[in-house]
């Protein structure tokens, strides 16, 4: 049940008449020598942690360890409650949950890295928003997490998900590709459409640098989790409407990795460039060293 590329994954889906989530679940059972019940249970636990981290800060905001963020999720939540939101319901909820998870993460709360801690808000943000708006069961949400896992696995195997290696495009970009693919499956799209959506996201976030203020997983990381959720949503909409992509996911992944390695060191999680060295960031950070 092993696959080494999106192409091989799609072949397996066709051969087995299964969605991506089911191939990934079977792979996990086979390679980990564990039963379906065990892996499903572990994924359900991850979903529960995701849900807690996405909802707690809406009412109980927490200040981050570095003091750069805290309270953003509550502001979005209140803004929506007043009927003033200009995003649609799904997107509004997705960005609110996404920033909430980062708030929990930055204040030393419990989260699920997805695929990293700094990008942990994107996947739960969008999937939980869809659950709210379309009354989707937890079982189906667990399925969609396996789908997201397949995309993330390919990125870890064939490229990178480390900001220090490939920039933010490798973290938030991959997280958003995972969320987009999972969304397409959740909304009854085909495996091909899932991978088209994942490809679209990598294209739209190509080249994004990793430039955290003070070297901390706070700012602009939190903003970019919301941006990742928005990118994932539009990519899923494209795919579900039947727009196919010229460049397949495998090629976008290779390209993302190649671009990532060419991003200067200053813009790969070192806090030596980008947002991190703007005058305002430096003033807030209080000097290097």
């Amino acid at each position, binding site marked *: 049940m092993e696959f080494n590329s999106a192409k091989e994954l799609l072949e397996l889906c066709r051969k087995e008449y299964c969605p991506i989530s089911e191939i990934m679940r079977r792979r996990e059972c086979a390679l980990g020598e564990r039963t379906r019940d065990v892996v499903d249970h572990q994924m359900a636990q991850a979903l529960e942690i995701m849900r807690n981290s996405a909802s707690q800060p809406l009412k109980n905001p927490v200040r981050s360890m570095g003091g750069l963020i805290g309270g953003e999720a509550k502001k979005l939540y209140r803004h929506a409650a007043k009927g003033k939101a200009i995003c649609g319901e799904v997107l509004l909820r997705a960005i609110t949950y996404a920033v909430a998870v980062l708030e929990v993460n*930055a204040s030393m709360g419990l989260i699920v*890295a997805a695929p990293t*801690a700094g990008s942990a808000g994107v996947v739960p943000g969008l999937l939980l928003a869809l659950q709210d708006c379309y009354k989707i069961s937890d079982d189906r949400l667990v399925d969609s997490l396996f789908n997201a896992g397949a995309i993330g696995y390919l990125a870890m195997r064939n490229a990178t998900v480390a900001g220090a290696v490939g920039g933010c495009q490798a973290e938030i970009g991959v997280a958003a590709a*995972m969320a987009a693919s999972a969304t397409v499956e959740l909304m009854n799209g085909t495996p091909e459409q899932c991978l088209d959506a994942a490809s679209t996201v990598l294209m739209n976030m190509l080249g994004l640098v990793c430039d955290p203020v003070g070297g901390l*997983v706070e700012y602009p990381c939190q903003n970019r989790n919301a941006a990742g959720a928005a990118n994932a949503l539009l990519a899923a909409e494209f795919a579900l409407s039947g727009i196919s992509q010229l460049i397949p996911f495998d090629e976008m992944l290779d390209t993302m990795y190649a671009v990532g390695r060419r991003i200067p060191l200053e813009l790969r999680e070192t806090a030596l460039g980008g947002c991190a060295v703007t005058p305002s960031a430096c003033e807030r950070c209080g000097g290097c060293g």
Partner: protein
Amino acid sequence: MSYISVFDVLGPDMIGPSSSHTAGAAVIAFLAHKMIAPPLEKVEFTLYGSFSKTYRGHGTDRALLGGIMGFGADDARIRNSFQIAAERGLAYSFAPCDTGDDIHPNTVDIRMENAMGRVVTVRGESLGGGKVRISRINGVSVDFTGDYSTVIVVQQDKPGVVAYITKVLSDSNVNIAFMRLFREAKGHTAYTIVESDGRFPEGIAESLRTNPNVHDVMIVEP
């Protein structure tokens, strides 16, 4: 693990904010605390590379201290580990260190002292994504990850000791995944590190200790 699991992608379940600087730090210290008999009285952490520069903002200090007290990377008590350590009477200190250019960027040296006055030092490296490597025990270079059930035998470097260890393990029906020997110098102290897929049966440490050339046995299970 020899493959990328779906739970390496959607995981680890962890206390934030950073898988390398927080979760990895907690895992290193957790592994270290398994290598010394409780109760611990004092622990000193020396931080290198990126750890030394950003440890406060990433909660690396709280995570290390939590791990030393036996908290896993997903244990919410990590946030309050300073307070919990004070309540337990555990003395701790953190020292950033700039020397050691050839050292892995996220490295920590941990010096632990227990109530019996025993001292164990451990060096760990946080490799990213919550994955770690233990690279030194008591100054001797070693190499293991803690992903597998691991038994560490501290022994006299003499003929027959390794054969004795493998016999005890095979008599207990332990399937060895990896086994390596590390030593200070010929005839001095050596470390045999055995990693196995399953948990070790009860009493394995006691059986290994009956050999007079075995000084100590530590069992570290995930």
